[in-house]
């Protein structure tokens, strides 16, 4: 057996599981999903080809779809920047201390650790209840209590707050990034008389920008796919008045409550295209704000 052949055999022996799994659980289902998106299919009778009807219906004849798109965009564009800003702020505050950073880092990470669980969604549901602790706090400060489950906008913000509360994993990534910035840069800037915001703008932000880009992309994709909190907090309805009908939840309902498998598949493909466009836009604009040291900017 010649060496080249033997190398290839060993290579595919090791990565074989990935190749097989990719074909079986990703590429074949994707092709099937693309086909279903052009059909009407309820799982019990064979799919019937209806061309682009599913896609046309989505944008012209399904107000709930447009509503779910709207709340998802508010959730993503409201939640992700807030979450990252928060994560960066706390990371910088923790990075400034020499002691007890380990303990604080752990404690600030905890919400993120448990955030994806059903238990936390149940907890969130209850602290925002009419007589929950959030309203008690608002009243304590002389503000009016909010009926979080009565108003679609308030309910959506309740979900956004839950996602911001879980800033811990982004914070850990920022902390690692901050630690890799040489202290000497800040010292040199101080000697030159730079104040805090100048140092932040000219040192921290540029040197951290690749990490920000990474967090931004991963968090945007994850936020777009959020399911559990909306499912639990609205008890599977997406209510009130479809105010928390996130995209994934509506897709799930179309597929597994109404058994519109064709329509749900079409929704999944539109989701993929939207995520692709968002990622591409972030990447393209990153040329203008992400700083790579190898470019010799220093």
């Amino acid at each position, binding site marked *: 057996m010649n060496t080249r052949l033997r190398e*290839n055999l*060993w*290579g*595919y*022996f*090791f*990565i074989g*599981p*990935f190749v*097989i*799994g*990719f074909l079986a*659980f*990703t590429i*074949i*289902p*994707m092709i*099937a*999903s693309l086909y279903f998106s052009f059909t009407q299919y309820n799982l019990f009778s064979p799919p019937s080809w209806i061309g682009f009807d599913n896609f046309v219906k989505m944008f012209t004849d399904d107000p709930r779809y447009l509503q779910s798109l709207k709340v998802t965009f508010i959730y993503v564009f409201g939640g992700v920047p807030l979450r990252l800003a928060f994560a960066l702020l706390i990371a910088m505050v923790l990075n400034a201390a*020499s*002691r*007890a950073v380990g303990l*604080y880092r*752990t404690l600030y990470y905890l*919400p993120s*650790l448990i*955030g994806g*669980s*059903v*238990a936390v969604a*149940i*907890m*969130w*549901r*209850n*602290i925002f209840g009419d007589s*929950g*602790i959030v309203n*008690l706090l608002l009243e304590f400060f002389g503000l009016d209590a909010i009926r979080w489950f009565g108003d679609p906008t308030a309910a959506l913000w309740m979900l956004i707050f839950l996602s911001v509360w879980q800033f811990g*994993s*982004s914070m*850990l*990534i920022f902390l*690692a990034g901050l630690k890799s910035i040489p202290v000497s840069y800040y010292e040199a800037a101080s000697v030159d008389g730079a104040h805090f915001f100048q140092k932040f703008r000219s040192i921290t932000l540029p040197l951290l920008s690749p990490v920000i880009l990474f*967090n931004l992309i991963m*968090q945007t994709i*994850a936020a777009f*796919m959020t*399911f*559990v909190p909306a*499912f639990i907090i609205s008890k*599977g309805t997406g209510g009130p008045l479809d105010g928390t009908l996130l995209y994934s939840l509506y897709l*799930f309902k179309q*597929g*597994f409550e109404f058994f519109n*498998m064709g329509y749900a598949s079409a929704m*999944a*493909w539109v989701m*993929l295209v939207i*995520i692709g466009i968002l990622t591409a836009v972030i990447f393209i604009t990153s040329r203008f704000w992400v700083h790579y040291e190898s470019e010799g900017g220093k």
Partner: protein
Amino acid sequence: MRSFQPKWIIYHVLVGGFVLLLLYPVVWLLMSSFKVSEQIFLTADHLIPDPFILENYVQGWKGFGGYSFGVFIKNTAVFVFITLIGHLISSALIAFGFARLKFAGRGFWFAVMIVTLMLPYEVVMIPQYIIFSQLGWLNSLKPLVVPAYFGHPFFIFLLVQFIRTIPRELDEAATIDGCNTFQIFYRIILPLITPALATAAIFSFYWTWDNLLGPVLYLNSPSKYTVSMALNMFLSNETVSNWGAMFAMSIVSLIPVFVVFFIFQRYVVEGIATSGLKS
């Protein structure tokens, strides 16, 4: 002694105080689980339960449909264990292939793997459901655990990064000693990547333990319910005043997550910081 300077005292009061505020809801959940259900919202502004009762835990543990909460925990533990073993074995093999072996198409498949990292599950969810239903796998763990044996892109990526830091001289020395490729993997690389495997195991545990969508799709009979599903059922059966039991079992569901975190904290924090794994 800079930590005793006034500046640092203020720092610790602010930073410590703020984290207490963030964690307050969890403490509130814990304390409420020891309150009489009817009083939870009447006394929401008092943290300390009066009277302090354990009745909620007894009630919640009874579960529903004739299955105690212990059954749901056992189901989840089995689900987690089978998934975790699959993730570790397959991801280690695949990562070794990508990190160490030269073969035709390596770059292509590595790129494919990176792309699948970002692929939303929703795109494959429906056809997968149809395929698994035609295989007769519904209402079993198979659709949930079998894919784990074909690698997980996050863990493959994490392990590839880790293996690349191991000097190749070790492989070469082993080859001279007569090891074949599999023996290099098994005897040289595998023992050296245990820290990264530990990180992967912990995240596999978290993601599986918290998984709700998968079990909701594939498991129908209460005897097979996982903890996440059971909590969801508690919520949909939520009677006017049974919050106590629901809170109590919510706390129970969080205990393993906290225990694993406090034992293996270092791996969790380093795993996130170095590879961007998110939970």
